[in-house]
């Protein structure tokens, strides 16, 4: 059957289109501009701003182009007298109560109302009465409000209701007294709230961190990628050359439309992490001499680093690499590590590395597959928090009718409907086995169990942080991948950082000596020198006193963009590295998209792109193959991302290890707002966190013989007092931190102790 094609005429142009399309869609596809405010291609149509009124032949009055479906033979005039009169009338109505404070409005220069008023407005107002004024509301640290400017297009309201699934904004009051607000006055909590700033056609909702920072017309725009989750959203990074010294400044980050990753949206974390770019940066090479930090030249610093590293005997040093660095950077670092015989680790969270090389961190799946899935099972995953863009896709699938099930250790606050199976992590393998049994899938040598899960025929499995941190992670990954092979379902194994996939591929190519045990155990053993690249162990790995003392004892070379307080104590030599936005490179996301980007601005101070630093270091160490590398493209030619073509997961467990019995398990994942140094230094994002609380079940408290409900002392190397939140939806024997638990970073899926408060 061929698809029906309609023919319409817009402004004299004969166009073909599909039934069901609206006039504005057809016009947009063919480059005919019809003015609009409330219409947005990703949101529902409300036809309320009336700006897109057009003349349709044989219709008694002007019709809204956004809500009028095309019909065969329709003749549409968007510039006729009737249409222009209607559009001008609407513009006049919109402007009478608008403050027209463009000179002091942040939206000035990129305001849809301002732009369209040039074409449809009058130069003089005939409205002389007093204008409406609306009280502003505090929407939190990310969104600045000036609601007097609001034109009631309700894009923000519809975004919350339809896309984000957190209907926090709404209209209150009628007629000219209608106001957009939260009603509850508790601010906006959504993890993707920044998109409302983009959607707002006027200056009612603007970016708080960007408030009064600059005018968009002076900005340079650079395509870039986000580095805070394994999806890698596409960014448009805006920079400005300041008058003084022609220095470049990072002004803001906006989403760049991409069909296969983020669509038109962006998570708040990706949007506002730029604010860290000038915070607490390491600007010069520094060396700690008898406990005091002194500035040294690059020459001295590199010579010193080379000397210290070359003194190492094979197997006596370690490289700890952030999983969010570019593939080129990782390639150079690991090449150096291979030469020096350093043991390398870029899996910060993974507890179980038995299946280290069985998958390259790439899942054979697309975002489209996620949105099309019909029965999704998510194990230990909370994408709303950790991969917000994936969370939106899951929500879209659910709205389209998909069944979503979570296997989790504690109840999740989700923005879509899902059933949650709350179970202690040590029971997860059992649940998988019973599911397999119900689907008649047999595993060689593994006995089945008797529990009920009732997931039915699953067509998409998502394994999240809970599996990454799980001591039986390789068992879970293996069982699920075998079921996937048996049923033809899709599998998405979420990885840490933004470039685990890229780093895994080059690590495999270089045959790197990857650490086979969790870093927590590894770092405890005697190590002469430790090289930290873009990591702060106190935040990035499960941390404890032992590790801290080991770090203090070893010679620590830190190649990093940001300082941390503890780094000043344990590091011995720091080399300033360009930040993510100052770096060119390539990232491979969890779905296998290879994407290169160019630096958006020059590195701050004396910091340099990491690959250059590693190249010189290699040369100083006398490695000839480093001298041949002259440019980033040389590295790109050396790395073969060919492994991608047979990406996937191919590890098979032959027997199950028994789950560890621990009395109290910490099930908190690494805090999303502490995922890397860049995010940790972004003040607006840090301010979005609530007060620290601890979720625990009544039964668990009783079994631990704890009676004090208000404060409890937590023993985990350090003492902390925390508020208890007695919850019903958390598995017994588990404890979870919520709110601001950055400081308690070091104990994911570890046994933890709890005692009565003073």
């Amino acid at each position, binding site marked *: 059957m061929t698809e029906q094609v309609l023919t319409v005429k817009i402004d004299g142009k004969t166009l073909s289109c599909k039934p069901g399309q609206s006039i504005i869609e057809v016009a947009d596809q063919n480059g005919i501009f019809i003015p609009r405010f409330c219409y947005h291609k990703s949101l529902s*149509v409300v*036809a309320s701003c*009336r700006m897109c009124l057009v003349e349709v032949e044989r219709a008694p009055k002007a019709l809204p182009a956004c809500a009028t479906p095309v019909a065969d033979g329709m003749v549409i005039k968007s510039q006729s007298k009737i249409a222009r009169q209607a559009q001008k*009338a609407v513009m006049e109505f919109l402007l009478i109560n608008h403050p027209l404070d463009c000179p002091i409005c942040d939206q000035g220069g990129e305001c849809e109302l301002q732009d369209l008023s040039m074409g449809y407005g009058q130069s003089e107002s005939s409205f002389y009465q007093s204008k409406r004024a609306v009280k502003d509301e505090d929407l939190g640290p990310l969104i600045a409000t000036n609601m007097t400017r609001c034109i009631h297009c309700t894009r923000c309201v519809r975004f919350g209701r339809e896309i984000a699934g957190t209907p926090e904004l709404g209209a209150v009051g009628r007629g*000219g007294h209608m106001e957009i607000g939260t009603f509850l006055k508790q601010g906006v909590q959504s993890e993707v709230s920044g998109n409302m700033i983009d959607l707002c056609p006027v200056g009612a909702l603007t970016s708080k961190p960007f408030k009064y920072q600059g005018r968009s017309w002076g900005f340079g725009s650079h395509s870039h990628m986000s580095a805070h989750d394994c999806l890698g959203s596409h960014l448009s990074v805006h920079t400005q050359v300041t008058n003084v010294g022609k220095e470049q400044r990072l002004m803001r980050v906006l989403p760049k439309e991409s069909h296969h990753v983020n669509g038109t949206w962006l998570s708040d974390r990706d949007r506002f992490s730029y604010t860290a770019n000038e915070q607490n940066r390491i600007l010069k090479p520094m060396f700690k001499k008898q406990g005091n930090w002194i500035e040294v030249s690059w020459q001295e610093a590199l010579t010193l680093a080379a000397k210290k590293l070359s003194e190492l005997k094979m197997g006596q040093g370690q490289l700890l690499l952030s999983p969010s660095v570019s593939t080129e950077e990782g390639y150079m670092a690991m090449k150096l590590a291979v030469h020096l015989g350093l043991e390398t680790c870029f899996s910060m969270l993974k507890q179980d590395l038995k299946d280290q090389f069985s998958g390259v961190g790439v899942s054979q799946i697309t975002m489209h597959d996620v949105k099309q899935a019909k029965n999704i099972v998510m194990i230990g995953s909370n994408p709303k928090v950790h991969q917000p863009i994936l969370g939106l896709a899951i929500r879209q699938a659910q709205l389209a009718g998909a069944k979503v099930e979570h296997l989790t250790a504690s109840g999740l606050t989700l923005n879509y409907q899902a059933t949650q199976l709350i179970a202690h992590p040590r029971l997860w393998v059992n649940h998988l086995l019973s599911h397999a049994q119900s689907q008649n899938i047999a595993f060689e040598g593994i006995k089945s169990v008797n529990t009920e899960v009732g997931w039915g025929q699953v067509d998409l499995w998502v394994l999240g942080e809970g599996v990454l941190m799980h001591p039986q992670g390789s068992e879970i990954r293996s069982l699920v991948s075998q079921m996937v092979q048996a049923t033809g379902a899709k599998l998405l194994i979420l990885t840490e950082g933004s470039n685990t996939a890229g780093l895994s591929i080059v690590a495999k190519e270089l045959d790197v000596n990857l650490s086979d045990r969790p870093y927590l155990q590894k770092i405890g053993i005697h190590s002469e020198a430790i090289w930290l690249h873009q990591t702060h162990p106190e935040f990035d790995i499960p941390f404890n006193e032992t590790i801290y003392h080991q770090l203090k004892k070893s010679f620590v070379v830190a190649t990093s963009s940001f300082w941390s307080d503890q780094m000043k104590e344990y590091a011995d030599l720091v080399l300033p590295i360009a930040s993510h936005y100052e770096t060119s490179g390539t990232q491979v996301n969890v779905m296998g998209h290879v994407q290169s980007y160019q630096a958006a601005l020059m590195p701050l101070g004396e910091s340099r792109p990491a690959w250059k630093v590693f190249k010189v270091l290699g040369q100083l160490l006398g490695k000839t193959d480093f001298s041949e590398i002259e440019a980033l493209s040389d590295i790109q030619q050396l790395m073969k991302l060919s492994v991608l073509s047979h990406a996937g997961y191919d590890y098979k467990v032959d027997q199950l290890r028994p789950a560890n019995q621990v009395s109290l398990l910490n099930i908190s994942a690494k805090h999303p707002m502490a995922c890397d140094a860049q995010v940790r230094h972004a003040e607006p994002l840090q301010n979005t966190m609530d007060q620290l609380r601890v979720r625990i079940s009544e039964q668990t408290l009783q079994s631990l013989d704890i009676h004090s409900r208000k404060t409890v002392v937590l023993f985990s190397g350090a003492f902390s007092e925390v508020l208890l939140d007695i919850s019903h939806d958390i598995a017994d024997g588990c404890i979870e931190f919520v709110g601001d638990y950055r400081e308690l970073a070091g104990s994911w899926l570890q046994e933890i102790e709890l005692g009565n408060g003073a």
Partner: protein
Amino acid sequence: MSQLNQVCYRGIEREDSYTLAAYQAIGGYSAWRKILEEKTDRNQIIEVIKASGLKGRGGAGFSTGLKWSFVDKNNPKQKFLVCNSDEGEPGTCKDTLILSKNPHQLLEGMAICAYVMGATKAYNYMRGEFFLQYQRCEQALNDAISAGLLGKNCLGTGVDVEIFNILGAGSYIVGEETAMLESLEGKRAQPRYKPPFPAVSGLYGMPTIINNTETLASVPVILEKGAEWFAQLGTKGSGGTKIFCVSGHVNQPGVFEVPMGIAFSELLEMAGGVRKGRKLKAVIPGGTSMRILSANKTLSMRMDYEDIAKMGSALGSGGVIIMDDSTCMVQALCHMMRFYEEESCGQCTPCREGSGWVYKILKDMVSGKARPDAVEQLYTVAKKIEGRTICAFGEAISWPVTSFIDTFREEFDYIVANQGKSWVESQVAGAHARAFGWHAKDNRDAS
């Protein structure tokens, strides 16, 4: 004089007219019983309603039989009937009496309509202020369910008609049919853009028919007495009776159910004529949203859809507002526009912004602060709203403003030129135009 109260108000002279016993005593529920017993063909009922010439009594005057035929009875989806008892149009107070005095007839009409369209669920949406009416309807509904007439398996025939009485929260715009659907769904009462029309996608996206209270209450009598009887009550184009709510400057304001096409002069006479022998100045024949007519146009006017339309206004909801020669038209309009400014839902731009602007200009006129070009501006602003909004609220603002200015231009010019001084005060003996004009008690009692 024409016979009163033959259809919707039949039997309301009885003190207990709202009880099941009283209603059945005058033949109530006989049409519904007959349908249930005979399993009357649905198309046959539609044909009867079409032949009766019954038109929607809410204001738009669309053929009821035709509307009923739009819903595909074989559509497997859940279908809904909604009775619009919101009655918010200023000057209208007809449905309230049906709800409080004759609720069973409305329920019977709803049951028949629901049967015809194949709806098993029907909602009777009353405005928030109708508390007594709501109680009467609830009582009636419970009695009818107890008697087996309504609810599941009516009279053991397997026909389900579940009716629910709903009390709104007191907004004017919820009387717009699609806004009513939004409100029923628990959302803000904001009209939807049409198409799709409710008959295709209405309540919860299902096929829905929305009829006015008076329309539905007329149905049982039509089926009892026949389409012909009903049609001959009225005129050729407009069958049946119509309830007119005569208010304003008359001696005996009241609600009158009279045959369609009655002479305006006769209706005025029923209401006791213009108060205290004053001269008739103007008439709004169908609620404040309709255009105003000067007295001379109404002299020979007949009260039916066609004749009023010929005069340049519309029958609307039947709220007939009489104004005598002491009325200051600017103040009257200002007062009306205050209502519309308050009641605009705020959804679409021309209405949200325009309603306030129109009111502000009128307030300036009345208080003497208007600019010389204010009348011109008022007219253009009203014209800019018309035809550019989602629902008919735009017209409800625009039509009164433009018709008031067209008909009484000199009064507007006068008040602007004389810093808020009213034309009637200077021209008409005994007229005391006060701040709130024509409606205020002190003004009505003056002279």
